[in-house]
């Protein structure tokens, strides 16, 4: 087990989550350091998304707690947690389908896009300037994700890969310090996966992000992540650098079904 490279930004302390008789998570401990790309892998149903849901406030932990910069996130709803600087994407894309691509990103900028009511109602010059600024920022984000040309289109009409990228752009629009990516490479071809990999590294630099990422594609994770945690049946069975995790016998047994790691299962 490796030591932390930096003081923990996010820390899960004994997080457990039960749905009736099903134990989705039990006693999960992990700490994500500032600036890290931290990977979460494990077979389907291992509790990875549940852990994301607990962190982002969509699901309440039955036991334990999540600490953000040392303070507890306990009892905070998703909107409060988003305001803390934690943004996420969803495994099954949840875009605002009836809104334009541009508006999807502008909704992400909700926290910063406020304006005095009177100015907004009267369409005052100050309000219009502010709105133009918001729009410029949104367009900048879209450009970063190669979506600028699609800005006026309805989000529902986009191709799958574009939708995936739009969801990331929308999450970044909230101005997060921690980005939770839930299977961002799902359904992508190898070239798109490479592109995604480079893009994640790039946005981490540009926005000084910490990234927590769930992904099934092991080679991608080995390449991208600074550290990895492995979940199985709701328990964290391994934690460490990709190299350490790759050789952990419990991981090989549980996750890769006995095959040597490094091959795409």
């Amino acid at each position, binding site marked *: 087990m490796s030591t932390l490279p930096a003081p923990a930004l996010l820390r899960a302390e004994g997080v457990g989550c039960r749905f009736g008789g099903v134990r989705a998570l039990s006693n999960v401990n992990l700490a994500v350091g500032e600036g890290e790309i931290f990977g979460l892998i494990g077979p389907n149903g291992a509790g990875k998304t549940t852990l994301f849901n607990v962190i982002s406030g969509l699901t309440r932990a039955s036991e334990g707690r999540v600490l953000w910069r040392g303070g507890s996130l306990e009892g905070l709803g998703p*909107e409060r947690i988003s305001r803390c600087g934690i943004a996420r994407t969803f495994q099954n894309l949840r875009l605002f389908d*009836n809104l334009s691509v541009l508006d999807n990103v*502008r909704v992400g900028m909700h926290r910063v*896009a406020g304006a005095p009511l009177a100015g*907004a109602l009267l*369409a005052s010059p100050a309000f219009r300037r502010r709105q133009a600024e918001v729009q410029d920022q949104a367009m900048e984000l879209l450009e970063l994700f190669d979506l600028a040309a699609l800005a006026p289109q309805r989000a529902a009409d986009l191709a799958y890969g574009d939708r995936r990228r739009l969801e990331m752009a929308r999450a970044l629009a909230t101005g997060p310090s921690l980005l939770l990516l839930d299977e961002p490479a799902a359904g992508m071809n190898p070239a798109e996966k490479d592109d995604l990999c480079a893009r994640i590294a790039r946005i981490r630099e540009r926005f000084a992000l910490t990234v927590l990422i769930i992904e099934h594609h092991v080679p991608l994770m080995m390449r991208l992540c600074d550290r990895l945690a492995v979940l199985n049946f709701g328990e964290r069975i391994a934690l460490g650098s990709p190299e350490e995790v790759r050789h952990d016998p419990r991981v090989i047994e549980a996750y890769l079904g006995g095959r040597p790691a490094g091959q795409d299962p």
Partner: protein
Amino acid sequence: MDATLPVQMVLGALLGLSVYLPLATGQLSLATPGFYVIGGYVAALLSTGVAALGGGEPSYPLPSLLLEMGLAALLAAAVAVVIGRPVLKLRGIYLAIATIALVEILRVLNLNLPFTGGAVGIFAIPQPFADPWGYLLLSALLLAAVCWLCARLGAMRLGRAQAAVRDDELAAACMGIDTAQVKLTAFVISAVIAALTGVISAHFLNTWNARQGSFDASITTLAFVVFGGSRTWVGPVLGGLVLTALPELLRPVGDLRLIVYGLVILAGPVVFPQGVITPERLQHWARHRPWRRPSPRAGA
């Protein structure tokens, strides 16, 4: 020309917008007639009960009317905040049922409270205007203001947040939007519009009773939105205007008129599943201006 029907049509459009605003936030609230009745009773009780407002004068003073509107708006907003907090936790059809219950509770209260006049209600409500044209002006001004608000919402953060909550409430919350607050805001604005409409309506009708806010009224106002279309504010305005006018315009048909009225309401959603007015149709009209050309061609 008699302006009675146009006044009723404009009041209908206002009630349509009152149903539309929560719906634009994804909330099917049928509480509009409840707040409409509250507004009406505020007007009826104050203008007939408080002599200082000038109810005895030949023409009811306009400032008194505006004062009534202000008080009705405040009362409706207060009721909407208190009721909205718990009720807006419900979704879809459950919210609809809870708001129908609210309308029914208010109706029964108004029938039985000692000061609301029982089944007869309150009559001889003083008139601020000598003829319907004054009412038309006042209600048209109110409609214009509400339309302006709806149009501005599209450019505002609140409007985008409403659309986001309507599309995916959970994702909206994850964007840092306080979804409960957005829903409550829409509900309160809706209540205020309905109450203001009620004030005008009570003076216009000269009498007010519990029948004004019934389950029927809930369904009728919802029909305005379903018929006109719920994806842009223009839809409920058109729905309110047309569906209020229709029963009157159909009077020559005699007994058949309610059947024809019913058929129109039925045919609307069948022919226009998203309502008569949709954003796409508005864009299309804005681009092609079919009313300017003698023979418009699609795609020209």
